[in-house]
């Protein structure tokens, strides 16, 4: 088990290096120097040279990459070119806010998805299956930014149930601050619910058709112990998808955060794009992608822990 975990960890290293190369390279797909876009065209050559030296753009490309990578490994992403504050501080605050949303949405979406998927597989072809399958299909094809707008329309415009956007003031009582979470969390949970629900249904149906389930029932096991056996067999693929989905929630909440004006990493990325704030942009993408890789690594190890057959 430990060798498997170590081997997987080693395999993640080249991927992470590749990710850092892509993130660094992305900035250079645009012709021109990042500094040129920031300074007015009439800036004197001395000012340009000074700015380049400050942000390290005067060195050759590979040196820039190595320096950037070395600093990034130490958690130093430099200064934002927009407001000259450390990038890491901004990113950390934004990531915390995104984490709150992602974790809550994952818990809600995954649990609903598992319940829906299980029930529709066990009632295959009957009405619960049809209803849940319809909900799941809607869930996976929903443009979540539109769903966010519709929810705001229903709960904040037509009725006055919940706040439309923002995170609420620090001074507000907890109960009122929680209200700000409801709409974004519900919106974000719909896609994971649909995706997980569909996979659970398909996996459980597949397992139900296998001989060992019949054998367990024939042996005299009652309903719940059989379901426990099914759940254990269905866990690895579902777990893998959950990891992916959680990564999407972390890295893909940018549209929903924009609608709800939630001060998370997606919002930060959006601002960085429009301000052409390259250091913030690079740092945000690099950190989110690293999370994604590590998450998949964790899922692989968890899968192997559940199912020894995976540890080849």
């Amino acid at each position, binding site marked *: 088990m430990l060798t498997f975990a170590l081997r997987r960890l080693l395999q993640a290293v080249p991927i992470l290096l590749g990710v850092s190369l892509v993130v660094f390279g992305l900035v250079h797909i645009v012709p021109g120097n990042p500094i040129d876009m920031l300074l007015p065209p009439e800036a004197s050559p001395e000012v340009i040279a000074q700015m380049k030296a400050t942000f390290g753009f005067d060195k050759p490309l590979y040196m820039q990459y190595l320096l950037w990578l070395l600093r990034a490994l130490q958690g130093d992403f430099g200064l934002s070119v927009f407001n000259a504050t450390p990038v890491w501080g901004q990113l950390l605050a934004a990531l915390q806010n995104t984490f709150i949303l992602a974790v809550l949405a994952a818990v809600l979406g995954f649990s609903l998805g598992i319940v829906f998927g299980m029930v529709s597989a066990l009632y295959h072809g009957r009405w619960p299956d049809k209803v849940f399958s319809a909900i799941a299909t809607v869930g996976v094809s929903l443009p979540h930014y539109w769903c966010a707008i519709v929810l705001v329309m229903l709960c904040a415009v037509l009725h006055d149930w919940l706040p439309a956007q923002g995170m609420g003031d620090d001074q507000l009582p907890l109960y009122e601050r929680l209200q700000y979470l409801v709409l974004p969390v519900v919106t974000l949970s719909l896609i994971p619910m649909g995706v997980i629900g569909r996979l659970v249904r398909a996996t459980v149906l597949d397992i139900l058709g296998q001989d060992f389930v019949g054998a367990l029932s024939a042996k005299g096991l009652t309903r719940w112990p059989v379901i426990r056996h099914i759940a254990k067999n269905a866990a690895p693929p579902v777990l893998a998808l959950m990891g992916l989905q959680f990564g999407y929630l972390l890295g*893909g909440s940018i549209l929903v955060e924009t609608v709800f004006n939630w001060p998370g990493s997606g919002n930060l990325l959006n601002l960085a794009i429009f301000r052409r704030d390259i250091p913030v942009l690079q740092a945000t993408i690099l950190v989110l992608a690293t999370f994604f890789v590590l998450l998949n690594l964790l899922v692989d190890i968890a899968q192997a822990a559940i199912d020894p057959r995976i540890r080849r």
Partner: protein
Amino acid sequence: MSDIAFDSRIASPAGIPASPAPGYWTSVGQRVVRDKVTMAVTLVLFAILFITIGAPLVTHYDPYHGSVLARLKPIGTAGHWLGTDETGRDLWTRLCYGGRLSLLAAILPVTISLIVGGFLGIFAGYAGGIAGTLIMRTMDVFYAFPSILLAIAICGLLGNGLSNSIIALAVVFIPPMVRVSETVTTQARNLDFVEAARASGTTTLQIIRYHVLANVLGPIMVYATSLISVSIILSAGLSFLGLGVTPPQAEWGLMLNSLRQAIYVQPYVAALPGLMIFLTSMCFNLMSDGFRSAMDVRLNK
């Protein structure tokens, strides 16, 4: 052989005479036609295609000119049955014309990734070896980014515009396309009759053309259809963020964004462009589901 397979998969099998023992693609076609949901969503998609491509036939308004006096009229206004937008343009007209760019921005990236990714995947799957490993490991790196994050990053850096949004999404869709085609090609390559063909001296190109492609194109096309559903949501999402299509062009995501401010005045009108995105995406999703289950031999005993 592969030609027949290719045709019957796209069109209905009406042109193919029923024989006592129908071929694989004929029976797939028959199952698709019998599947009410798939046929219904296909009809809806044709309807959407008709109102977008034939927009001048279903509306006589100009999508770019509105009257300031007729701003944000509700649904059911005389002359504007779906109301008007924030500058007084007829919303039904904007929705019809807007579908052109929305569909283009969604289908083109998938087509590009189908060609590039399909080629790379089939090559990596059939040839294997160092080249195959190199392709697959490079794709792994792109897999490390959540798709929307990569699309936004590329599009944000290239600058807004329809072509940049198409490039960004194509880059995002190539890795999964490569992976799917590589997997099915590897499976097909190891089938017994491919081995037999190779043993009997068929050239590599002929094997790929007649045996591998015939087995691989179906699953790849089904996957591409399901990607279109994702692509519609993502490309409209890019425009929604202000990264894709630029005003005053009509596009569903962009319209949704510019009508967002009007949600307190005309909530129902403001939600309509999103409804179109949702409807189109769901139809492609269900169509892909229908084709997949029609092609699954195990499910259709």
